[in-house]
């Protein structure tokens, strides 16, 4: 068995860094692969516009990669920072930070591939609107990065948190749970936001006149899709900043870990579902602009109802933290 605390901390930070960069790179790669596949398709449709399409793909990829670069920064910090702490809690915090950023980058990486791909396809269909299409794609994929930014904030706070003399026994679970909560909940919101942005690019290529309404609907839909990741952030902050009384029982630790897992996984489904709703609404705003108000209202109600399972997960998490 390892008895040396420094070794365990090193192991935890290396493991966290590996998860972080591995998952972050996979997410960005899937997104870029989607964009590249769509670009191939559109170049084969319209070979004479290949220059424009490749330019669009380049710019889209550069922005879509941001989530992966966040993961890289966190991984480098985890590997090269010399943790002089002799507290075992540091190991939990560093591992939690790696998990948080790794999972948080997947959703945004995959998600921001959709607007890039749809924009490439749209360029082959409607060459005259290339400027508007690219602007819309960039706004969409920049908003997609929000869950990844949330995860980066949480993992930086976990890395640089002043552990002090907090009791080890339940706090390790709280720190690990804080990482899982924000990181995993960000997957759904990132993918949902990406679906919405992709639909908006497709819509603008179909009917460029409706640019204003489509962009507004997209932004509102993406903002509401971010709600599950905001819930995840809320649970993380509570787990990080509440001081838990020392107790050596297993159940106290498992309650805190369970709170993080519950909110994290509970956020995936509603995030994707909200994205699907916004996707449908954005697509049809461009086809039937007269019904835009009706569509926005239905989208908001539908998204609100499909969020309710995320809210149940948040309630269970809060019960696990505060009541049990």
């Amino acid at each position, binding site marked *: 068995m390892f008895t040396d605390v420094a070794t365990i901390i090193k192991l935890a930070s290396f493991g966290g860094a590996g998860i972080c960069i591995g998952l972050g790179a996979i997410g960005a790669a899937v997104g870029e692969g989607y964009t590249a596949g769509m670009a191939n398709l559109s170049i084969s449709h319209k070979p004479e516009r290949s220059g424009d399409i490749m330019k669009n793909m380049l710019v889209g990829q550069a922005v879509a990669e941001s989530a992966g670069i966040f993961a890289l920064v966190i991984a480098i910090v985890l590997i090269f920072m010399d943790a002089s702490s002799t507290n075992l809690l540091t190991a939990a915090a560093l591992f939690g930070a790696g998990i948080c950023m790794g999972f948080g980058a997947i959703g945004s990486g995959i998600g921001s591939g959709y607007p890039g791909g749809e924009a490439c396809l749209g360029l082959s269909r409607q060459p005259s609107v290339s400027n508007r299409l690219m602007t819309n794609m960039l706004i969409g994929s920049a908003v997609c990065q929000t869950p990844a930014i949330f995860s980066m904030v949480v993992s930086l706070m976990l890395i640089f948190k002043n552990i002090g003399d907090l009791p080890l*026994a339940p706090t390790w679970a709280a720190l690990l749970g804080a990482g899982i909560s924000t990181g995993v909940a960000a997957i*759904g919101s990132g993918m*949902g936001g990406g679906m919405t942005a992709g639909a908006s690019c497709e819509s603008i290529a179909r009917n460029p006149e409706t640019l204003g309404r489509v962009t507004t609907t997209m932004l509102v839909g993406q903002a509401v899709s971010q709600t599950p990741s905001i819930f995840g952030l809320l649970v993380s902050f509570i787990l990080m900043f509440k001081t838990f009384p020392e107790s*050596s*029982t*297993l*159940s106290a*630790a*498992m*309650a805190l*870990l*369970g*709170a*993080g*897992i*519950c*909110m*994290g*996984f*509970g*956020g*995936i*489904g*509603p*995030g*994707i*579902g*909200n*994205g*699907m*709703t916004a996707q*449908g*609404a954005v*697509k*049809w705003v461009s*086809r*039937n602009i*007269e*019904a835009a108000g*009706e*569509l926005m209202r*239905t*989208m908001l*109600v*539908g*998204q609100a*109802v*499909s969020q*309710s*399972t*995320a809210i*149940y*997960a948040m*309630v*269970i*998490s809060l*019960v*696990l933290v505060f*009541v*049990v």
Partner: protein
Amino acid sequence: MAIEGADIVKAAAFIGAGLAMGFGAIGPGVGEGFAAGKACEAIGKKPEEAGLLTRTMLVGQAVSESTGIYSLVIALLLLFVV
């Protein structure tokens, strides 16, 4: 660490509650979102039927949410009864 039988049971119940609600929320969330997306498409096609379509969407969502509610019930049972 003093780990006793009752403690292990409690710990398992807590983490089980978290897992139940966490994974139980995935399916209904996606499903309800899918239903709402289809309702939006239908309203785009026929805006004059918006009231009926919204009601149908809500009924469908309520039905597909029932599995989420089952998970909630199970989680609460695990938390407070076990």
